[in-house]
């Protein structure tokens, strides 16, 4: 008898049960389990509480690292920031991920449009009341051609690399080749340091503002969020997906997702996200199809852990 015939005979024999039956109270079992887990959860909450980190806001970031904030704002203005080049769902940036012919990110389209120059710099500044100097600078910048704008932007960015990390040093950056950019950036920095930019980016048509996308994307383009994440081991290349802030345990069950980001080719690929998604899709498909995979479906027979769990039953049926 071949192995396949033998296992088929075992399967056929298992379809009919001649042994004894015993009552099983599922409701009682579930009640006991939920009660015990609930008590454990409440006890752990009393003992350890939950993570309580102070939030990073644009206000706190622009006060602590004004040069980083203004440099990031310049990236938004000249279209070189990560968000500006991200692609869908935010913009038409060139860095949309793909895997061979699968351009999933582009196919899903721009669902949450962000025009970085308008949304992060020009729009919030235009909404500020009064300030004739700012209004004039905005008009000058908008009137100029894109080549002229880029020349001002790059000259200001070069000047910014030479100043100390303070608002006073930034406000001292001026020059004939910088056009209206210093006035724009000085106003934006003051607005951000006062907390106004946080509110301006959160404002929407709904009564309750819960869409933090624009704020988070701006913070992510800068260095403040990344440096906090690095300190807490939360970056993608630090197995961050399964970590939590402080000494709290994190999402250990995400170990397989985050593991791929630590090894090549995923760790060095600009298309890492879609590659990891594809690998996990194939593995998940394999998991769903376990009953149909020869060898894998025979593991319970080959490694009979069930006999250890139901050892009393198998002991009683032994001849």
């Amino acid at each position, binding site marked *: 008898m071949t192995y396949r015939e033998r296992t088929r005979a075992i399967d056929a024999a298992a379809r009919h049960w001649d042994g004894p039956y015993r009552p099983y109270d599922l409701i009682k079992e579930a009640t006991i389990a939920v009660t015990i887990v609930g008590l454990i959860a409440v006890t752990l909450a*009393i003992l350890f509480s939950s993570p309580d980190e102070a939030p990073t806001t644009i206000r706190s970031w622009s006060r602590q690292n004004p040069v980083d904030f203004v440099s990031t704002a310049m990236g938004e203005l000249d279209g070189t920031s990560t968000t500006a080049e991200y692609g869908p769902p935010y913009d038409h940036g060139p860095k949309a991920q793909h895997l061979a012919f699968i351009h999933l990110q582009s196919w899903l389209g721009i669902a949450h449009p962000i025009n970085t120059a308008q949304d992060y710099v020009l729009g919030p500044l235009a909404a500020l009341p009064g300030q004739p100097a700012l209004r004039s600078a905005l008009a000058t910048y908008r009137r100029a051609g894109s080549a002229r704008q880029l020349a001002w932007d790059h000259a200001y960015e070069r000047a910014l690399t030479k100043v100390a990390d303070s608002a006073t040093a930034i406000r001292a950056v001026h020059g004939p080749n910088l056009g209206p950019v210093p006035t724009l950036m000085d106003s934006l920095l003051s607005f951000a340091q006062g907390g106004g930019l946080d509110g301006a980016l959160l404002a929407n048509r709904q009564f309750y503002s819960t869409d933090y996308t624009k704020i988070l994307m701006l913070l992510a383009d800068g260095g403040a969020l990344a440096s906090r994440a690095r300190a807490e081991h939360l970056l993608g290349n630090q197995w961050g997906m399964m970590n939590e802030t402080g000494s709290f*345990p994190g999402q250990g069950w995400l170990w397989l997702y985050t593991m791929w980001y630590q090894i090549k080719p995923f760790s060095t690929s600009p298309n890492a996200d879609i590659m990891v998604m594809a690998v996990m899709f194939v593995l998940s498909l394999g998991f769903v199809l376990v009953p149909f995979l020869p060898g894998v479906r025979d593991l319970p027979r080959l490694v009979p852990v069930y006999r250890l769990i139901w050892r009393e039953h198998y002991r009683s049926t032994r001849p």
Partner: protein
Amino acid sequence: MFAAIINLNGHAGYVHWGFIDLSVPNLIVIVAMFVVFLIALVAPFPGHRRRGRS
């Protein structure tokens, strides 16, 4: 607002093994999961002895 009895807001320790970088709190939870799994395997079912063999 109540403070936690045991404060876990300090920085965690990390275990490095090759490319693996695992936080000590995660390691404790993973070990605890294995321990619970092993106990579930070897602990007798409650009430079995009372009911006797059927």
